[in-house]
């Protein structure tokens, strides 16, 4: 049975079901409960996460399995890596993905590489949940979308869901995956509602989802930008252009087949990625198609990304920083060769 719940409720539900299913699933992070050792909060949380995403978990699973940590990202992330390698199935929350600067080694050189360096004699079933995304007026150090850094690193899987329902199924798949997964949650999507199945279900990592079918133009969009793509597709439809919107859902592994098949059908590709443009997921997808899908292409591949600058604080500037349907339309006009599209 499905019912409408928010993105953050869907994430919460996934964790709850995972913890019920497997006693080895634990959660660690800063204030994932909050109020540790406060007398009146022994079995209750103070916060349940900085954005309330982990609410209720400490009540159900107790402070042994829902561990508040000090502000020591390297410490608890490294601990999560070997907890995973020695029999637990930890979910470690990196509050904002921007804080990876404090624990990249634990993720990149330990978690991602253990299995390979040990010749296959270890597995690291670790899920790192982390918030990303601009548009929250949170400025340069709390607004980045850093999934490209992780996608670059072999040994990691990278998931960026765009809807509540995907978030739940992908998070459950991530938690029960035997490799380290970095799971991105866009903070500006938390309040978004959608139909979500009550039951335990997983969505396989590495399978893209076609969020809209179309035959004239392919847009591959990441995370929240799937919604920008869908809005642009609506506007394009008014001009008679049928847009296919592909949501890769996981950047690593990437569902190359679905992307290539779509471009084979449409002959045109726009990639929307709100991250910075250089060495990004946008360039990654573009380069894939410029190689394996070259013969399908009727026009240049366009990328709609953030500019090459940090995320500005001022709302006036941050709004300019992000991709918009209008920017997509401009690119579409260019590759379709119809300037009137811009003015839809």
């Amino acid at each position: 049975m499905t019912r409408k719940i928010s993105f953050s409720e869907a994430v919460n539900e996934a964790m709850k079901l995972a913890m019920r299913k497997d006693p080895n699933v634990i959660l660690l992070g800063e204030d994932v409960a909050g109020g540790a050792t406060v007398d009146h909060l022994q079995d209750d949380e103070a916060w349940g996460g900085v954005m309330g995403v982990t609410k209720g978990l400490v009540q159900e699973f107790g402070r042994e399995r829902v561990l508040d940590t000090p502000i020591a990202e390297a410490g608890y992330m490294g601990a999560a890596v070997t907890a995973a390698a020695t029999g637990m199935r930890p979910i470690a929350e990196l509050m904002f993905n921007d804080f990876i600067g404090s624990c990249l080694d634990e993720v990149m050189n330990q978690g991602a590489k253990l299995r390979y360096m040990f010749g296959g004699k270890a597995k690291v079933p670790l899920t790192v949940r982390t918030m990303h995304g601009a548009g929250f007026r949170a400025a340069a150090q709390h607004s980045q979308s850093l999934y490209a850094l992780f996608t670059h690193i072999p040994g990691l899987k990278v998931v960026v869901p765009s809807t509540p329902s995907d978030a739940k199924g992908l998070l459950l798949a991530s938690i029960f995956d035997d490799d380290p997964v970095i799971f991105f949650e866009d903070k500006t999507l938390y309040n978004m509602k959608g139909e979500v199945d009550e039951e335990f279900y997983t969505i396989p990592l590495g399978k893209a989802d076609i969020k809209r079918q179309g035959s004239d133009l392919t847009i591959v969009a990441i995370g929240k930008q799937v919604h920008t793509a869908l809005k642009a597709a609506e506007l394009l439809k008014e001009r008679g252009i049928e847009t296919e919107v592909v949501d890769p859902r996981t950047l690593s592994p990437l569902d190359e087949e679905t992307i290539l098949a779509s471009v084979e059908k449409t002959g045109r590709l726009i990639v929307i990625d709100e991250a910075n443009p250089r060495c990004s997921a946008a360039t990654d997808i573009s380069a894939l198609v410029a190689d394996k899908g070259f013969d399908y292409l009727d026009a240049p591949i366009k990328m709609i990304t953030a500019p090459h600058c940090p995320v500005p604080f001022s709302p006036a500037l941050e709004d300019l920083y992000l991709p918009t349907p209008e920017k997509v339309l401009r690119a579409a006009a260019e590759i379709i060769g119809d300037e009137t599209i811009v003015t839809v």
Partner: protein
Amino acid sequence: MTIAKSQTKSITQEKAKWMYQKMNEIRQFEDKVHEIFSKGVLPGFVHLYAGEEAVAVGICAHLSEKDYITSTHRGHGHCIAKECDLNGMMSEIYGKATGLCKGKGGSMHIADVEKGMLGANGIVGGGFPLAVGAGLTAKLKKTGGVAVCFFGDGANNHGTFHEGINLAAIWKLPVIFVAENNGYAEATPFEYASSCQNIADRAAAYNIPGEIVDGKDVVAVYEAAERAIERARNGQGPTLIECKTYRNYGHFEGDAQTYKSSEEKQKHLQELDAIVRFRKHLLANGLVSEQELMHIEQNVAEAIEKAVEFAENSPFPTEEELLRDVYVSY
């Protein structure tokens, strides 16, 4: 380690007035931001310094523009104590073009390098190495300056605490590490997250002096700072000062603060209020008259009103600012 008690009359009348003014500026600035934020006008995250005024002011009372400070996500108080412009600060918090950072930084990144203020910082623990760098410049260029690193009890468990203090210690840099132990990091008690009883206890791990002061007694902070800064300027290296303090508001605006008990709040917000206590101290010691104090309070209130007005009437930055200041060349 014993908690240092404040001596009398170490502070000149002029300095005392400056301190009282700055403490009031901070309190009123923060109360105002709290008020405006609750109306939904302000964008983003805001962390208020109200309640901790004695720390920033007691320390910065010794500093001039050749001295640097590094700050935290809770940086408004440090900015004001380091004499950043109130209009420019408020405007920055509004994201306006007239902000100290042209609206690009916001509350968590207010900076004024010329004033020696190296920025609020969105990264907990980010300030330790940065203070070391400013101290290194001071030492190498023999400027006579010092660098002060303000940090929270939460930051005290971050790896940069260890690396930063060790570096400053082995290089005998003129750096003062000032712990603002307000008992909580977000919703997590200091006692849970830290294996030490006092942050100052950790000074011994670096062979540097560690001192605990009542961080809500501005005179005590002032005096501890004096000792530390003298050591620093004399080439004797860093000191760690732990100020026991309290934040009057939540971690950020919107925090229900369920982790605080009402007795605790009551005690801190009323009995122990740093401004009330300093006011009494000044009057009791005849340093500043009641009239002068009221005059200061009123001037501050006006300045804060003006800052809000300035910010509200300022324009937002325009499109060409988006890609400016990424590099020196553009």
